């Protein structure tokens, strides 16, 4: 028989592990529903363990924190979204600008996660959640199969609750311990490395042709040598975020170090002038759950829910690279479902099924299911190697004036570039159709 918890043990309705966006959204919903909730964070403050390659898309916050944009600690509002295909010395950029994204209710923003995550956690705290930092959850407490709390690294640090919501990040040892994950395959993960490069505000405004608190998000394909992945460059208020996302097994196999690959991209003629003269303010690294829907764990067990990176909810679908919004959406749904289950006195897996229903009804699982083939396609040789070369090659030939030779014409150029890069028309068509299906 498992030991009965002692009465003196701190007892909460729900324990949320990890005060990232998922955990804080869950704790916020629970506190608002009148449940007692403990929000555990192993870092000295929320966000201190978190980095991203990214943009925070705020629509998911509209219901949670009305007019969030007036108070959220953001760096710049993204009003330019660029996609760059590059080879060693060429770059083709599709650049979209919308000043509507620079006005309320806004679209996406750059932010420092230690600031943003701490802000969101403070919202949960203000609503009544008990935030405990500098405390690592070391394992699950169980009664038979049922999760009844977590052990922590504090003296007498066991915490008892009716539901544990695991928002403990990509490595989620708790979800693994609960048996919710299949054995992990490194091919499902990427490594993100990033430099925050300090530059004066005016220099950034000028180099990126933006004003005020408007900023730029550049996503880059073809900048990672032989390793499937991609690059990114974002503007903060007075710094840039420059980084790479690299397939873990392929990075390990290639024998080159991640910061070397990043150095290559920084030297590229399309990138170097943008970052010139800036000092590295902070280097950071994090693993990303890349494979989306297909790598997701069981999201619900007896007394346990999983949300955010812990549930592999990053959407790494090439043209869409999102994670914080999925974490918030999932965390809020977990909080609502847990609150309901506690109220109804059924926190078994069956009693918590409302969580999955909520995720299926909103963007979190709908998007993931719809774009479940996208991560694989984006990491394919075609997208990684052939597409950037062919696209840049076509541009090179298209805009190189060859007088006195006559212009070859579009069809000939495309055909010759495809041939040069070993892409057969038949494969191009079938892959193109597949891409259309994949992206809905």
């Amino acid at each position, binding site marked *: 028989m498992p030991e009965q918890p002692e009465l003196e043990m701190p007892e909460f309705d729900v324990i949320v592990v990890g005060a990232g966006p998922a955990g804080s959204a869950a704790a916020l919903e629970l506190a608002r529903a009148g449940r007692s909730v403990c929000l555990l964070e*192993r870092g000295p403050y929320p966000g201190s363990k978190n980095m991203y390659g990214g943009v925070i898309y705020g629509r998911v916050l509209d219901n949670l924190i009305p007019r969030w944009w007036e108070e959220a600690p953001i760096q710049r509002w993204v009003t330019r979204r660029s996609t760059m295909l590059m080879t060693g010395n060429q770059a083709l950029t599709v650049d979209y600008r919308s000043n509507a994204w620079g006005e309320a209710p806004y679209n996406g923003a750059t932010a420092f996660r230690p600031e943003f995550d701490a802000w969101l956690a403070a919202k949960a705290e203000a609503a009544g959640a008990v935030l405990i930092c500098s405390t*690592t959850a070391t394992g699950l407490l169980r009664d038979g199969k049922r999760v009844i709390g977590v052990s922590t*690294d504090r003296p007498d640090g066991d915490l008892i609750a009716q539901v544990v919501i695991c928002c403990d990040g990509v490595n989620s040892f708790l979800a693994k311990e609960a048996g919710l994950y299949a054995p992990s395959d490194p091919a499902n993960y990427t490594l993100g490395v990033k430099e925050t490069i300090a530059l004066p505000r005016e220099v950034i405004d000028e180099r990126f042709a933006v004003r005020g608190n408007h900023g730029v998000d550049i996503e880059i394909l073809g900048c990672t040598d032989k390793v499937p992945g991609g690059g990114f460059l974002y503007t903060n208020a007075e710094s840039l975020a420059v980084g790479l996302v690299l397939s873990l097994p392929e990075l390990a196999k290639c024998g080159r170090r991640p910061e070397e690959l990043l150095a290559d991209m920084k030297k590229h003629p399309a990138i170097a002038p943008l970052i010139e003269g800036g000092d590295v303010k902070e280097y950071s690294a994090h693993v990303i759950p890349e494979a989306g829907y297909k790598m997701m764990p069981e999201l619900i067990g007896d007394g346990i829910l999983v949300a955010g990176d812990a549930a592999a909810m990053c959407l790494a679908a090439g043209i869409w690279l999102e994670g914080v919004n999925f974490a918030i959406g999932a965390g809020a749904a977990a909080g609502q479902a847990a609150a309901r289950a506690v109220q109804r006195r059924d926190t078994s897996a069956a009693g918590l099924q409302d969580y999955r229903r909520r995720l299926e009804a909103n963007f979190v699982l709908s998007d993931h299911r719809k774009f479940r083939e996208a991560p694989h396609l984006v990491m394919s040789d075609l997208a990684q190697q052939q597409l950037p070369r062919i696209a840049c090659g076509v541009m090179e030939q298209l805009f190189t004036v060859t007088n006195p030779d006559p212009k070859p014409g579009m069809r000939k150029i495309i055909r010759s570039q495809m041939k040069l890069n070993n892409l057969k028309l038949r494969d191009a068509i079938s892959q193109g159709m597949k891409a259309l299906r994949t992206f809905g």
Partner: protein
Amino acid sequence: MSTDSYPEISFESRMSSVEFRVHERAHITVDDKKCADCSTRECITACPANLFVPTADGGVLFNYELCFECGTCYMVCNEEGAITWSYPEGGHGVVFHAT
């Protein structure tokens, strides 16, 4: 493209930009007997903090102190049980500020 105008920073300067609140207990341990038998040793190049260093006698030296706690090493490791991985004590380890 000349690299002179955009000098790459040294690995030491890169890592000195990051705050680590080091705890006396190592949160990651490496079984160097198993590493000595490993032919791939992919952790050595993949670890973003460069914490795995090959030794002359065929082993692997490991330093936990400047660790990003990312998980790359145990995920790429193909020697069962060679790397034992956990999080550092609460409040310790990497502390990000501007990322």
